[in-house]
């Protein structure tokens, strides 16, 4: 056994046993972040905080929520909303945070795409981040089912039916996922388990991995400049703080992060108290009814773009069924971001404004995603269906031409 000497303070006693000083250095005071960054680099801390809000508000909701098709609706809309002290607040905090967390995820993602922070050594940051996006999506969907309103029920119906598109075993798979021939009590209880246990714990694990993936390639910076972090850290520690290109995570980087977080939290609580309605669809205040589909159903705003890709293909093309094309396009839309680091054929890391063609590509993608989001909410008839179709085709084409686009930039610059 290691030899222990008498400690003179509680801190020293703990330090002997847990080596907290070194741990603190590695994780906080000597974890180096580039200086040349802007407020967009604060999104990670915002996301971690929002996830914390979701966990805490979720714990309070879970104490009164009842996962049973006969009780769920009233436990939310009567017990939590009207009887529990501040129950309404916890519900609105949870619902609004679930919506806002996707806004921040999208900003975080597109910041990464814009500055090229997904490639040349940073692939694992990108992949673990996309896994977080997927698990958050699953958590959002499973949570949406819990109030057991009409939107909960029909969203569950449509999403579970998507698995019917799996070749051969599709129909059996749908019944297996639901535990019944339609969306029923067995479905609600198992999605409750996923929402309150398996998905949150998976998310926590992946967050740990996501932080760790930053360790070796380090955080990117505004001009995508490459430098030796150890060298710059030495300069900082030697007192050349001005000259050094890095700052420690704690307390320097975090101080600016917390300022951005303050602005974000004011915005978030403004929504919670005065504009929570955007996250509380009125249709979901009708109890679930398996015999009546609401006149018009749509997912929450953050799923609209991929939903529109799914339904954009509304007619058969060259013998392929519209259903299958839509499903393949949907799978493509949800999977393609994962391989982004390999679609980008430019060997240099540069921000988009230094990659002329990629810059155009990036903003077309943004515009296309906005069009898909807007039309995803509109009824799929007449002109709307065609706008959806062309926007969905454009989305797929954008990713197919990305290798060419990035090569053109690299060639012009002389890097290829």
């Amino acid at each position, binding site marked *: 056994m290691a030899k222990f000497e008498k400690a003179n303070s509680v801190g020293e006693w703990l330090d002997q046993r847990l080596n907290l000083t070194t741990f603190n250095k590695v994780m906080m005071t000597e974890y180096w972040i580039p200086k040349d960054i802007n407020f967009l680099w604060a999104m990670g801390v915002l996301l971690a905080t929002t996830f914390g809000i979701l966990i805490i508000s979720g714990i309070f909701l879970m104490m009164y929520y009842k996962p049973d098709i006969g009780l769920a609706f009233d436990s939310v809309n009567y017990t939590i909303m009207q009887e529990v002290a501040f129950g309404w607040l916890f519900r609105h905090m949870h619902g609004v945070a679930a919506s806002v967390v996707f806004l921040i995820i999208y900003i975080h993602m597109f910041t990464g795409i814009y500055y090229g922070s997904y490639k040349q050594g940073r692939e694992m940051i990108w992949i673990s981040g996309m896994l977080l996006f997927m698990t958050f999506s699953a958590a959002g969907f499973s949570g949406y089912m819990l109030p057991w309103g009409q939107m909960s029920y*029909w969203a569950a*119906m*449509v999403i*579970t*039916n*998507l698995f019917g598109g799996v070749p051969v075993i599709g129909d059996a798979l749908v*019944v*297996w*996922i*639901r*535990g*019944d*021939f*339609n969306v*029923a009590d*067995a479905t609600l209880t*198992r999605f409750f388990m996923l929402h309150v246990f398996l998905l949150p714990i998976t998310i926590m694990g992946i967050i740990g991995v996501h932080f760790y993936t930053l360790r070796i390639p380090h955080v990117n910076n505004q001009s995508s400049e490459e430098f030796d972090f150890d060298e710059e850290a030495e300069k900082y520690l030697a007192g050349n703080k001005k000259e050094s290109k890095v700052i420690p995570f704690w307390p320097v980087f975090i101080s600016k992060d917390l300022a951005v977080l303050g602005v974000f939290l004011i915005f978030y609580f403004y929504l919670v108290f005065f504009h929570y309605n955007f996250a509380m669809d009125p249709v979901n205040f009708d109890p679930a009814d*398996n*015999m*009546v*589909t*609401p*006149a*018009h*159903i749509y997912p929450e705003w953050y799923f609209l773009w991929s939903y529109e890709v799914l*339904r954009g*293909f*509304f*007619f058969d093309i060259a013998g392929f*069924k*519209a*259903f*299958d094309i*839509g499903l393949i396009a949907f799978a493509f839309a949800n999977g393609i971001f994962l391989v982004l680091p390999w679609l980008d054929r430019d060997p240099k890391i540069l921000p988009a404004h230094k990659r002329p063609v990629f810059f155009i590509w990036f903003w077309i993608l943004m515009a296309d995603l906005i069009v898909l989001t807007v039309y995803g909410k509109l*009824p*799929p*008839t007449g002109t709307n*269906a065609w706008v959806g179709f062309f926007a969905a085709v454009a989305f797929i084409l954008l990713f197919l031409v990305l290798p060419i686009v990035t090569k053109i930039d690299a060639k012009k610059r002389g890097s290829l």
Partner: protein
Amino acid sequence: MSKETNRRDFIGYSFAAVAAVGGAASLVGMKQAWDPLPSVLAGGFTEIELSNLKAGTPETFTWRGKPIFVLKKSADMEKADRDLVVGEDRFTVAIGLCTHLGCIPAWKKDMWKCACHGGEFNASATQTFGPPPRPLDLPPFSVKGTAITLGEEGPEYKAIAAAMMA
């Protein structure tokens, strides 16, 4: 390979074998825990009296938690292979869930229209527009006089199912 490595390998392989058997068995168990319960599987047969239906307007019944459309065809509606003929009358019997993603289409004048993704089905339950990949599904049924029992596979059902496959 030395003798010692062989012994350690043997221990390793034996553990791998135990773990594989146990792992596979627990996967089967976990898979089955998610299967529909016996009470769900046993759930219900529904009897529908056809003689009370009005021609040209479909009615909706419930079977296993799913809506079932039964339409008595009016004279101007076109005949189809899947028509259930009882006496003089022709009926369309279908599970009322859009074959695209499972919303319930609503009857509008002379067809079922799905609000979710715009799919349409005619009076014979055949898809005529939008993403549905196939006609509305046929529920199993048997015919007794002028009534049908959903959940039982009668000869009339088998004949129609075969005609739809062809």
